[in-house]
């Protein structure tokens, strides 16, 4: 994992003068006797007017609530990017006012009637009863019981809530077929490891996809997805196999069209998955951030999208001038800007 920050020491040194000046700059008003009363207005922007929402009271009516659920307690190891991804998702909602976020790495809240660790009913906090969508960053065998599984399916299928899932989410619950139906595909290893590969945008009309070139090169750990059918899901992005070594061990020809991003309905609920997001710096990419932000807005029911399944294109759009690493056109390629 490497830093995405291009600033060098000389640049920092130049900034020092400005920083020093700015940090001293916020002039504090002179102390006055009446400073006691009302001198510090509660910050604007809190819809509760500073009262707070208490412990787990629902957000105001015009605010959606998103649960970032990143239970990584089981499986090989937590991806280092999980916390950064959760924080990026939180901040996008907070800064825009589009949604409020609860970040949880446990699964107690995956219930309509969540319980404390003692078994008593929880006194507040997020639950399936009060969040509008889940952003799922869990992996492997997330520890929830059969009742919770049924409630999770109900949350999406019958309540029509949103389920947005990233990267390692497709490794979750390999032994639970209904979750495969919900998500639309399963992890089938990453035969190419972390590499740079061309990605084809199949549906530029889906919210968020318009910010990508029709074909772009990207550096990430690309998942091979199995148990995926374009008849059930709208393919938004797929790997261009022409730019990948298809002779590597583990590459499964049956996994064509190698979809890595898709959207679908599960009952009444909206489901979005993208395999992009292995490295923390991936989550700093503006195009990737917009993809997630718009996917969340769609999943929350704020913006519409057509997710009718359709066949995958047979022609590949003209390739970019050069495949480069995601940086800002260092080699003139049409990679994604940072």
């Amino acid at each position, binding site marked *: 994992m490497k830093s995405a920050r291009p600033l060098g020491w000389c640049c920092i040194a130049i900034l020092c003068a400005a920083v020093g000046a700015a940090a001293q700059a916020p002039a504090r008003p002179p102390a006055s006797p009446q400073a006691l009363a009302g001198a510090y207005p509660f910050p604007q922007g809190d819809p509760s007017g500073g009262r707070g929402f208490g412990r787990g009271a629902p957000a105001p009516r015009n605010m959606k609530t998103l649960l*970032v659920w990143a239970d990584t307690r089981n499986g090989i190891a937590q991806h280092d990017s999980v916390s950064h991804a959760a924080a990026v998702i*939180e901040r996008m909602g907070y800064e825009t006012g589009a949604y409020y976020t609860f970040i949880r790495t446990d699964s107690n809240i995956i219930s309509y009637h969540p319980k404390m660790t003692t078994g008593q009913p929880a006194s507040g*906090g997020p639950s399936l009863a009060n969040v509008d969508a889940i952003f799922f960053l869990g992996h492997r065998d997330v520890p929830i019981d059969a009742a919770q599984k049924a409630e999770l399916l109900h949350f999406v299928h019958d309540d029509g809530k949103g389920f947005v899932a990233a990267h390692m989410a497709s490794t979750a619950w390999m032994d639970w077929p209904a979750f495969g139906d919900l998500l639309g595909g399963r992890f089938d290893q990453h035969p190419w490891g972390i590499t740079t590969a061309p990605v084809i945008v199949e549906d530029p009309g889906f919210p968020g996809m318009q910010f990508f070139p029709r074909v772009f090169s990207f550096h990430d750990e690309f998942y091979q997805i199995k148990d995926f059918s374009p008849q059930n899901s709208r393919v938004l992005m797929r790997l261009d196999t022409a730019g990948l070594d298809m002779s590597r061990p583990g590459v499964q020809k049956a996994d064509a069209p190698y979809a890595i991003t898709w959207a679908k309905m599960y009952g009444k609920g909206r489901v979005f998955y993208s395999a992009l997001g292995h490295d923390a710096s991936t989550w700093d990419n503006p195009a990737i951030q917009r993809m997630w932000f718009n996917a969340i807005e769609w999943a929350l029911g704020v913006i519409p999208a057509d997710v009718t399944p359709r066949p995958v294109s047979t022609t590949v759009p003209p390739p970019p001038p050069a495949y480069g690493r995601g940086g800002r056109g260092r080699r003139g390629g049409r990679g994604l800007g940072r």
Partner: protein
Amino acid sequence: MTRRQWMKMLGQGAAAGMALPLAAQLPPPGQQQRAAAPGSRHPAQMGGMATPRRPGRKNVLAWGDVRNGFQHDSVSHAFSVIEELGYVSQLYDTYIRTDSQLITKHGLYGSDGQVVYGHDLNDFDAIFFFGVREIDLTAEQRADLLAFVHDDGKGFVAVHTATTAFMSWPEFGDLLGARFVNHPWNTVEAPVVVEDRSFPATRFLPPVFNFRDEMYQNKGINRDEVDVLLRLDVSHLDTRQANIELHNGDFPLAWSKSYGKGKVFYCALGHHRTVWDIPDVQRIYFEALRWALGLTPGEIRPHPMRPAAAAPVPLAPPLAPCGPAWALASRRR
């Protein structure tokens, strides 16, 4: 200035070691590099996912086990702010967890007992604790947590509800330095006296400032051992309420102390989400973390209660939102 610009400034100041006025100097980059902690797992064991630690960076565990249901709305936003400060400054990597799996030095195990590779307490340099009430820990986990601070000399930065945690566990009270007994005025605006203006986390604050938050009554402070940094000035608040248990007017809001070889910092500010957008509050916790991580020196100087030295002034308000232009264009407020 936007919030993100401010964070970048904080971060660059920290990285440069000189930009922020009054901030203590960092050790030169070479001295920050050190070998992996004794318990660090080999990368091969990580399945290529969790890198053991990045050179020159500390690991911070943002631990807020709220499985007991008393989740404050601000916890997730606080974690997000702390994560961004470390990410932008490149001083530390943050691991956000609302469960307590990582509170161990005896290996990680999944729910069905299988070995899970990843970071445990041996890999962390400090804990940023936003837990609440009784948290489900085994006796071994409790001993490991105490040893993490007391024997390993790691940092423990605790926030707001931390004084409500583990009421039934006396040693945790020794570690933290005080216990919560109610918030008699709930959310109220009152002056806060900065009692120690030499400590890194409070040296940039005005002598007295007005603040609006849910003000805690924290009991059991031993001023012979604890350096009280912030104190609530209750002279204009009703102190005759039934739930007032501190009758000497001494209501500490923030303090630093040692616990064995470890560094402990507590601050009660942070009940509301928006409190975490106030630049000075972000800096309190950022500087506290740097101190707890051993990146800046800071002396613990216990002292008797100090009176307000000046009339209160307001702090600078929260900064403008910092989302990208495309996102801010769709703001709903």
